[in-house]
């Protein structure tokens, strides 16, 4: 069970529990924490995430399901690559650390902290304590303290709550210094990889670095013994053989600290919301929600969103927010909104452009620009005859036949 740390007032904790309703808080992992950095200005997201609301379930229930399905092929490939790298006491991994990173590793001990027989029912607290004990022994440089620690369970304070991170990394210790090792199955071709995927891996690794540093610092060690260079292991070119690259995550660490620090301001945000706000689905005995979807939509609308098209690829609620933002210039993208002089509503922008609306004082300049733009479009489109409704090609071309 997640405990509430001393940092959050009892009041706030109760508010968050109310917002969440009866459901268990959604467990954070490195990926969800990393996602917090993507749209920090969105109050809706901040409130839901801090309260641990299951946004995916909520979105599906109000009929705006998220489209973050994962292909079984991708999962299988990821698992296969990971087990290949970790096989025989992580032999391939050690070879890479030695050869590619030039680390003089003499003997290697490999401890998997997840799969200890008979301990499947351990609580996170117990697992965390065990991981902590082992890692601290290594930090102290004790004999036989180990080299590679697979799946250590780490903890991090998120918005005043202790969050245990679903472990998906190896901590590598050499001469009292730790490196986070992240195994990913996207390819590095000729030294390049998909920057979006590298970026996601970097920020997730940074979450682990931060959590390890926090743990070591609490135990009185210098947090800097966890390197800011993380080791990324990926398949090389089009093959299955792994390659190692060091990724400097100092910028990601700074971003995370900033955003985690910001989340503690949740009290201020909550103060502005209705006291009885809740996203409780009120499930019956069989787990079937009994609350009307409309009631949940109403609840969502009491918390401001900051929708941008980028949300579609990162937030489970994005399709709802997009529908809500219809008619707003924000839905056209940040650069379009800027070019429209920052006018909020498409309708307003067009009325100003046509001169049908007299601008408010702060809209004067934007209105002048829009009128000018509208004049040019009108001047140039009419004579060119390009107002044609773009219907399809007439029958008779082979193309239209294909179009059906």
């Amino acid at each position: 069970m997640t405990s509430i740390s001393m940092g959050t007032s009892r009041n706030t904790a109760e508010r968050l529990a109310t917002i969440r309703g009866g459901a268990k808080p959604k467990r954070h992992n490195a990926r969800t924490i990393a996602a917090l950095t993507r749209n920090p200005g969105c109050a809706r997201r901040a409130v839901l995430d801090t309260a641990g609301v299951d946004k995916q379930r909520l979105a599906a229930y109000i009929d705006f399901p998220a489209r973050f399905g994962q292909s079984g092929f991708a999962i299988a490939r990821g698992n296969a690559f990971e087990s290949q790298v970790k096989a025989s006491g992580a032999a391939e991994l050690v070879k890479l650390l030695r050869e590619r990173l030039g680390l003089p590793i003499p003997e290697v001990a490999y401890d998997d902290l997840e799969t200890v027989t008979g301990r499947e029912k351990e609580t996170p607290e117990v697992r965390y304590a065990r991981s902590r004990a082992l890692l601290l022994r290594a930090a102290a440089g004790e004999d036989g303290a180990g080299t590679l620690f697979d799946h250590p369970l780490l903890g991090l304070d998120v918005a005043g709550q202790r969050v245990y991170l679903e472990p998906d990394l190896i901590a590598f210790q050499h001469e009292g210094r730790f490196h986070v090792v992240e195994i990913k199955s996207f390819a590095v071709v000729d030294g390049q990889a998909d920057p979006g995927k590298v970026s996601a891996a970097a920020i997730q690794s940074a979450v682990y670095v931060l959590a390890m540093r926090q743990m070591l610092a609490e135990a009185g060690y210098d947090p800097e013994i966890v390197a800011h260079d993380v080791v990324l292991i990926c398949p090389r070119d089009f093959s299955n053989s792994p390659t190692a690259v060091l990724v400097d995550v100092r910028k990601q660490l700074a971003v995370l600290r900033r955003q985690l620090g910001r989340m503690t301001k949740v009290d201020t945000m909550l103060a502005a919301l209705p006291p009885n706000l809740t996203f409780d689905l009120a499930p019956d005995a069989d787990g079937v929600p009994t609350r009307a979807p409309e009631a949940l939509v109403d609840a969502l609308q009491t918390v401001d969103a900051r929708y941008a098209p980028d949300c579609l690829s990162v937030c489970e609620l994005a399709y709802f927010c997009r529908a809500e933002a219809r008619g707003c210039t924000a839905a056209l993208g940040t650069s379009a909104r800027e070019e429209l002089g920052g006018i909020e509503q498409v309708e307003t922008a067009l009325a100003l452009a046509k001169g049908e609306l007299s601008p408010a004082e702060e809209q004067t300049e934007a209105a002048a620009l829009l009128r000018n733009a509208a004049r040019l479009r009108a001047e140039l489109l009419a004579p060119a005859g390009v107002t044609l409704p773009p219907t399809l090609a007439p029958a008779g071309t082979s193309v239209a036949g294909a179009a059906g």
Partner: protein
Amino acid sequence: MSTLTALARAEAVAAGHAQRITTVRHLHVSDRPLVFLPLSMAGEANAPLGALVGTDPVEPKLLVVPQPRNRDQRFGFAAELAEVLLPYLDSFRGVTEAVAANRGREVRYRYVDAPQVLVPNSAGIGFVRLFGRSTRFRRTDGDYPVHPSVPLLGQWLTFLADRAEHPGSGMLLAMTEALGLHWATGQSALEDAHLAALLAWIDPGDGLTGADAAVVAEDPLRWPPAGPATDPTFDNEILAPAMTAYEEAAASGEEVRRSRARGVLEEAVRSQLTPTWELMWRGVSLLRRLPAGARVDGRWAEDRDVFSNFTLYVDGGGYPQPRRDGAVNAAQRLHRLERALQSYAVQRAYDDPLVMADHRLTGEAFVGEVTLADPHRIDDSGKRRVLRPRIQVTTGDVVLVTVGAVLHSPSRPGQKARVVFVTPDLSTGQTDVVLELSGGLGRSLSPAPGSVPEVGDRLCYTTLSDSFMPPGEFPSREETPWTHGGPPQAYEEPVAPSVEDAREEWA
């Protein structure tokens, strides 16, 4: 994004369908394009799963890889693709035309037409690039021999992917980008990357608004993703069982069973590609209906030049392109790309008043009427008397050009106009711009007929210049300086692929 395009997006929201942002088409559309729709297997590094490919809208060829993780099948796919693509490329190697080269001292030949490959989106171009990379170093001998067409295909795919980077080239185009160049939708640029949604805005059909049609188009059941990535639900619910069934059937040794299972798999892949195939040809049809800009042919001629040269290179047994550009190659290519980008931007503005309007809005161009003209003005301040006519252009556009700036008019190439005075009239909102002309006036001290604009003419003047920019000079590869690592290693040199390259870490 310019304000005009943003306004067009706003208009699209209100109108319920996409709005034109150009008056002409700015790219070449071939009479016989080849449409290529690749699909790749999730989780793998560009492993082909299948493709629809061909030049006939009603009879595409379907390629399927039953087990994309299998190396032989992967290169089997490459060989099958080569069977379609290479004859297509060859079909343009018939008629040539002579072109004067080296200031008319020499003649070289280029093909009168060239191939044009269309993929749905920029990820499709990425597929072409990576598939070229994974095939061009393959060898036809040794441990893992491939069909001789495979490395050749790799060279051509790499060639096409390189051209796709070149601003203004039309040899490999992403349909979403080609359409997005001409239409503004009422959604964001990010959503425009979805071909079905983009076309839904351009042609919502059946009384739907663009917004509603786009929402429908986003449903992967009705409009599967245009690839190369597949819909995860399709992977999990249809493809995975079909693949397993095929593997089991193949293992059983029963040909009928295997063939039936393959049929199921083929239909599954076809079902994901056919809707996009139709969208592609709808896109082609929409583009064809736009009149081409005046300079489109010139850019296509450049594509034909490059195509002709590359056929010579390949015929001469040229080595596959290196994995990465070496220092000199990189600098040269950047230089080429920068020149092409600038000239493409200027050419589009010169070809299309609606594109020029972007520059009028930012004050870098203006359109006005000639209100005064002194065509016979002589400047005798220098060593010799020169003809320097002056004209005054009066415009309602915003004028931000400064005195001394040199302007050009799209309709008067070869003539320069230096800004002498800029006088805004705040009461009328008009601005008088006095320009001094040089060039294109004939050889004598009186202007050739028609060489000086007359009072009443309506003209556009802009800071954009279409004049020739001489190419820069670079050291040879062997002369790569010490500041840049010295002469390159084999890695970034075009060389014959070694056995090592061909085996390529295939584990």
